[in-house]
């Protein structure tokens, strides 16, 4: 509950830690804000995509002649309009990309690799003509056997998606191709020796289903290419510099010719970090010489944009009777979808990250299947592996008769702990979240009939990266702040607050915008929980540049050395021996003399933000089970997380609450359901059911603040960690209520009921 958080957790600040109204708020409650599909360019055409009905098929030929000749059709593009790309992996946020695969994902080349894979795209003067044109495109498919399940895909003799795929990370390299793109391994110590010391060992296999980010706004863009090759794209994206880079690369154009503007974004959660429609819209616009607008339907979003991996996870943990873990081992098999690049690597790195272990080993496999290529989804990879590990830890606690928080405290990573994935942790707040959970009233409140309580923890890395911010001092002393990381959940408010804090001015003196790719240097995307951290750091640097310049200008006016002027509370004054010699000047006064003292004043920070720090969380879930239907309902939930520092507590709480809601959906409802024909059976919100208001309770939050010493305001980044603990917290609550350990997500009513019936027959059920 909001009231549990102090309104000004850090009283040394005027703005940081307050709950200011966001600057983009009024536009968003009045319908004025313009999202991806809200822009119409003069003369724009409608672009539509023809998609493969087959999960796996060789494309022998594509005949677009009838479509191209339909009156009203202005352009058609196919694989022939995109040059092939060499195979090389390039870091893109928390995932790696390979342009050989990206060009094939935006438009199928040799084969269609999943149902929904784009085959051709048309631009026409109306939606109905565009749809009619799609029907006129003739595609000659040779349908091939497909594989959907990750374990099936790893079997010898499974249908091969890529005939040249040799598993990376295996020595010596396999001689034959397979669907296993990569093997990764992390850990240290000697797990066999560790298990030999164990007095209790729990070993379990888990499965999770692919789940979709489920942003309410479908992918949408408008692209316009002029006769001289200058291109503009308006798009809903988490990173418009990334869109620019991908489009320029796929189309073979100069980066500088492409200007990308980020629309207001209607949710992303990682899913809007890649390109789907944008290169097609640009290619169509270039051919048609008119702007082309493309918007996905919800069905297209489900069939052809990235969910996250489904997975099989095997976990083995050994402990002594006092609860000290002596060894942890995990094997992860993650579906990547049609192209290599599942988040198995971060999944493997996260699996045991909250714990201080002497002996730990995690092996992961990245496996291609005939499904849409996965995209990042909030802490990509982490929720899957940590669900499995946190479930086994709970089982150990139950078997030892130990409090699960106490067991975690006994093993918790602290400053100086060597993480299972390699580095040593700096100051971290994991222990503080566990202590806060133990102290929370929720932990002590008695349960009602048919209810169980579970606790689970979670970890995410957080990242920094390339960031540019400009801050102009306007001639009347107001300020214009331009950042380049799209604002998905209150970023602009947080940046204004940090700038106001630095400058000692009121919040309403600063107007903030997200600039386009022509207005700032490169910005890496909004992802990895980096936006408030990185753009915040750059904003502070830009503000300090403005302050330095203001002092310089006053010094010039007062004929004093620069270091004899100090900045305080929104203005400058002579300091030291010269104090009192001149009347202080406000920032507005300085703005007024800017022209005479050297020209416009602006700060421009261009940084690679280093020093991102992980965020740990501990969640408590109470779940009530209907003994007749098996339906599990979350009746109380508390999310506790280290924010480093909450710049705007309401939006930090919002991240915790939103992550929990997505995690509850992942735990109880959400899954991609495929038929034996390899086609998705639930590509809509009716059958792919995300949590609605009546499914959820209020979500209590506690913000723990262990500041990140590498950020001027202590920010860690908070967006991703909250989705990590819910699946295990709920599974652990179900185990508490029923006596049954659930290892297969989602824990939907039929599965829970079947497991209950089985346990009742065996006499092990608690209800």
């Amino acid at each position: 509950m909001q009231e549990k958080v102090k309104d000004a957790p850090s009283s040394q600040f005027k703005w940081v830690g307050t709950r200011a109204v966001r600057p983009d708020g009024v536009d968003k409650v009045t319908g004025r804000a313009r999202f991806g599909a809200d822009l119409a360019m003069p003369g724009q055409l409608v672009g539509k995509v023809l998609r493969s009905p087959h999960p796996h098929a060789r494309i022998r030929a594509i005949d677009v002649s009838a479509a191209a000749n339909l009156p009203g059709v202005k352009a058609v593009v196919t694989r022939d309009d995109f040059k092939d790309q060499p195979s090389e992996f390039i870091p893109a946020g928390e995932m790696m990309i390979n342009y050989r695969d990206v060009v094939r994902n935006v438009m199928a080349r040799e084969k269609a690799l999943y149902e929904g894979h784009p085959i051709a795209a048309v631009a026409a003067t109306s939606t109905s003509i565009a749809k009619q044109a799609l029907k006129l495109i003739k595609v000659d498919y040779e349908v091939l056997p497909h594989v959907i399940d990750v374990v099936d895909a790893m079997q010898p003799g499974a249908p091969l998606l890529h005939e040249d795929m040799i598993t990376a990370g295996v020595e010596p390299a396999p001689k034959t191709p397979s669907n296993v793109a990569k093997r990764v391994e992390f850990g240290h110590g000697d797990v066999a020796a560790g298990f030999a010391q164990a007095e209790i060992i729990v070993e379990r296999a888990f499965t999770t289903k692919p789940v979709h980010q489920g942003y309410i706004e479908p992918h949408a863009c408008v692209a316009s290419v002029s006769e001289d090759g200058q291109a503009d794209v308006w798009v809903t994206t988490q990173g418009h510099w990334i869109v620019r880079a991908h489009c320029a690369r796929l189309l073979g154009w100069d980066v500088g010719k492409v200007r990308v503007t980020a629309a207001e974004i209607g949710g992303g959660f990682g899913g809007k970090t890649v390109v789907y429609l944008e290169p097609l819209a640009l290619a169509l616009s270039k051919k048609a010489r008119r702007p082309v607008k493309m918007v996905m339907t919800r069905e297209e979003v489900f069939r052809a944009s990235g969910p996250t991996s489904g997975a099989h996870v095997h976990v083995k943990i050994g402990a002594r009777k006092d609860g000290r873990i002596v060894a942890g081992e995990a094997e992860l098999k993650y579906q990547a979808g049609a192209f290599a690049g599942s988040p198995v690597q971060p999944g493997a790195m996260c699996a045991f990250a909250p714990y201080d272990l002497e002996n730990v080993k995690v092996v992961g496999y990245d496996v291609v299947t005939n499904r849409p290529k996965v995209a990042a989804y909030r802490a990509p990879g982490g929720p899957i592996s940590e669900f499995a590990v946190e479930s086994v830890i709970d089982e150990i606690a139950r078997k030892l008769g130990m409090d699960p928080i106490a067991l975690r405290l006994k093993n918790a990573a602290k400053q100086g702990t060597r993480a299972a994935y390699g580095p040593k942790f700096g100051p971290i707040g994991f222990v503080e979240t566990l202590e806060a959970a133990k102290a929370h009233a929720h932990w002590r409140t008695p349960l009602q009939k048919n209810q169980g309580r579970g606790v689970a923890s979670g970890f995410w890395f957080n990242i920094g990266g390339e960031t540019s911010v400009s801050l102009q001092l306007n001639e009347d002393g107001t300020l214009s702040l331009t950042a380049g990381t799209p604002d998905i959940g209150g970023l602009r408010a947080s940046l204004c607050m940090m700038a106001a804090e630095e400058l000692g001015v009121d919040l309403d003196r600063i107007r903030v915008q997200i600039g386009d790719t022509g207005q700032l240097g490169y910005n890496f995307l909004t992802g990895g929980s980096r936006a408030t951290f990185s753009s915040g750091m750059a904003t502070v640097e830009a503000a300090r540049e403005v302050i330095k310049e203001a002092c310089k200008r006053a010094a010039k006016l007062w004929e004093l050395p620069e270091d004899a002027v100090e900045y305080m509370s929104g203005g400058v004054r002579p300091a030291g021996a010269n104090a009192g010699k001149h009347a202080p000047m406000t920032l507005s006064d300085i703005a007024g003399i800017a022209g005479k003292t050297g020209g416009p004043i602006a700060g421009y920070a261009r940084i690679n933000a280093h020093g991102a720090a992980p965020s740990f969380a501990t969640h408590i879930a109470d779940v009530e089970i209907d003994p007749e239907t098996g339906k599990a309902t979350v009746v109380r939930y508390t999310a506790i997380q280290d924010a480093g520092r909450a710049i705007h507590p309401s939006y930090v709480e919002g991240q915790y609450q939103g992550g929990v809601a997505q995690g509850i959906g992942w735990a109880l409802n959400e899954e991609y359901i495929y038929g034996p024909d390899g086609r998705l059976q639930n590509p809509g919100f009716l059958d792919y059911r995300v949590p609605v208001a009546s499914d959820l309770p209020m979500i209590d939050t506690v913000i723990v603040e262990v500041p990140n010493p590498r950020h001027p305001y202590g920010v860690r980044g908070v967006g991703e960690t909250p989705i990590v603990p819910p699946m295990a917290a709920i599974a652990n609550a179900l185990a508490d209520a029923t006596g049954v350990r659930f290892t297969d997500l989602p824990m939907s009513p039929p599965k829970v009921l079947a497991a209950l019936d089985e346990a009742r027959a065996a006499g092990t059920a608690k209800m």
Partner: protein
Amino acid sequence: MAKHHIAAVVNGDPVEFLCEPGDTLLDVLRDALGLTGTKEGCSTGDCGACSVTVDGRLVCACLMLGVEAAGTSIGTIEGMANGEELHPLQRKFLEHAALQCGICTPGFLVAAKSLLERSPDPTETEVRYWLAGNLCRCTGYDKIVRAVLDAAAEMRGA
């Protein structure tokens, strides 16, 4: 395809538009009338982002044809504020930080207004069930429900 000429009232103003027989009310609002505050999230009536009122009744604009709007009075998010003065629901959504990305916000506001017109003193459960047709993927609904309850209290003068 021949277009139909339709006359209706939107946010109190008379409007006329041409639409194809298959165009939804949502297509008409967004494309013909330029009222893009009403959002398209699914086009199957499952997400509530296109919530509007038609003669006072809450509907998904994607589930109604444009031609069916003839002679009706339609309310959209663009008509919710009274001049410069925000509706209490709009103000409370801002104060409670009841939005993150904001794409679902117009639909939630239109639906919540419709609730409070019928039930000025709803319980938390009533609010949750009335808004169950509006999907939000960002907030977990907590702050939305609080904002609606707080706005209701303010509007009752409580």
